């Protein structure tokens, strides 16, 4: 072991970057070719590096960590307010969340027909809107991948429908009025359509699959239905008939039977709100 070994090892220290072929580097390379000790040194460095990498291995951040982080970002974004300019797609997704909340609100209040008190609702809307924008999600056009991603993040099983006329873009989990749900996003031409599945309010639990309901809120169309424990809704800036087609295909794919549903049946409609 000589000083030459130390110099060669420093000059040829393993890295994945380019190394200039200076005369001293070439000299060091020639030394290593003839030096068994240096060759063993570099081999052991490589093995130690591999051992460390293997020992740590892949890690998946727990859902609680993701949730905490994205809520923190969401709060920070709310505080920064108008610094961000949402795109049309984002506005659609955010507005969709608001519309769904409206539906949930109407359903929760059904029986007394009182609309939610605006002053009390506004902060909730703002909070939920910001939360929806900041939630973690997955970008994928693969329904299997999205199903796998959703598995474990929700307390209910969710079918990811596939449509010939709309392409799958991704999904995210969200919380609407303290109820966990999922938003699955589709591109339909230039428009974005959101498919929501949210745990239904215990106060309005249904015992069978309902008929489709339609609503309009701030220019967005909504087609929703329920099955025991879950509320489904398609929301988007497309025609109601388009949403109805998607909803029907979704139900068919999920294998859900809708005894009450047929094309000729009059559709019960929520009260439109402009």
């Amino acid at each position, binding site marked *: 072991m000589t000083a030459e070994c130390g110099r060669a090892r420093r000059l040829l220290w393993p*890295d994945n970057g380019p190394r200039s072929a200076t005369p001293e580097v070439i000299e060091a390379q020639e030394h290593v070719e003839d030096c068994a000790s240096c060759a063993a040194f570099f081999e052991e460095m490589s093995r130690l590096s591999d051992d460390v990498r293997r020992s740590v291995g892949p890690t998946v951040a727990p859902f609680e960590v993701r949730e905490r982080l994205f809520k923190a970002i969401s709060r*920070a974004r709310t505080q920064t307010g108008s610094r961000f300019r949402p795109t049309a797609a984002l506005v659609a997704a955010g507005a969709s969340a608001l519309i769904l909340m409206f539906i949930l609100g109407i359903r929760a209040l059904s029986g007394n027909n009182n609309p939610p008190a605006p002053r009390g609702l506004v902060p909730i809307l703002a909070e939920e809107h910001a939360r929806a924008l900041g939630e973690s999600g997955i970008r994928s056009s693969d329904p299997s991948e999205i199903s796998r991603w959703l598995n474990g993040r929700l307390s209910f099983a969710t079918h990811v429908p596939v449509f010939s006329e709309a392409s799958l873009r991704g999904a995210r989990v969200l919380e609407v009025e303290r109820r966990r749900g999922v938003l699955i996003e589709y591109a339909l031409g230039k428009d974005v359509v959101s498919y929501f599945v949210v745990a239904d309010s215990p106060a309005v639990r249904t015992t069978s699959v309902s008929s489709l309901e339609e609503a309009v809120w701030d220019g967005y169309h909504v087609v929703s239905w329920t099955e025991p424990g879950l509320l489904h809704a398609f929301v988007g800036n497309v025609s109601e008939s388009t949403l109805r087609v998607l909803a029907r295909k979704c139900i068919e794919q999920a294998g859900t039977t809708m005894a009450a549903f047929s094309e000729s049946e009059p559709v019960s409609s929520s009260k439109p709100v402009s």
Partner: protein
Amino acid sequence: MAQHSRSTPPRAFEELVSEHIDSLYRTALRLVGGRSADAEDLLQDTVLRGFEHFSQLRHQDAGRSWLFAILVRTNLNRVRTANRRAEQFGADLSDRAFEEALAAWRSNITPEEFLDRKESAEGLIKLLDGLHPELRAAVVLTDVEGFSQREAARMLEIPEGTLASRIFRARRELRQALNENSSGLRARERT
């Protein structure tokens, strides 16, 4: 934040975090020595700092290394503030001292011992967690996360030679600890 380019998607920061959250969490976990609660706190500090300075990220392609730079710097600031084990780290090696340390390395490990090491991944993680934070950060960024030494040196704001000497010191400590563990195991097997 106001300096975002017009082409920057509004949720670009969330998407960036979402894309790298697993590896960020893995690194955070190792940087804090495996304590999950500390890793979560570190990660939250990191993403909030990242969110605050997202406008400074000029090239979206560099998002991963930018996030990791914030992560390791946030951690080192926390460590320095807490002044944990600062007395054990000492100064970085000069080129001459580094060469002497490199020359002093003796490769005396057998293939069987390497095999033993592979079977004791958990043990190696514990040894890694026991390294000084400055050494651990160098090894995790390069060996675990696969950043080039140039990138890692930039993240840690140190010269590349200093980073190389830290990686070497970390590996030397790991090897020494592994050898001690192996010797202990063999001694126990004999008795």
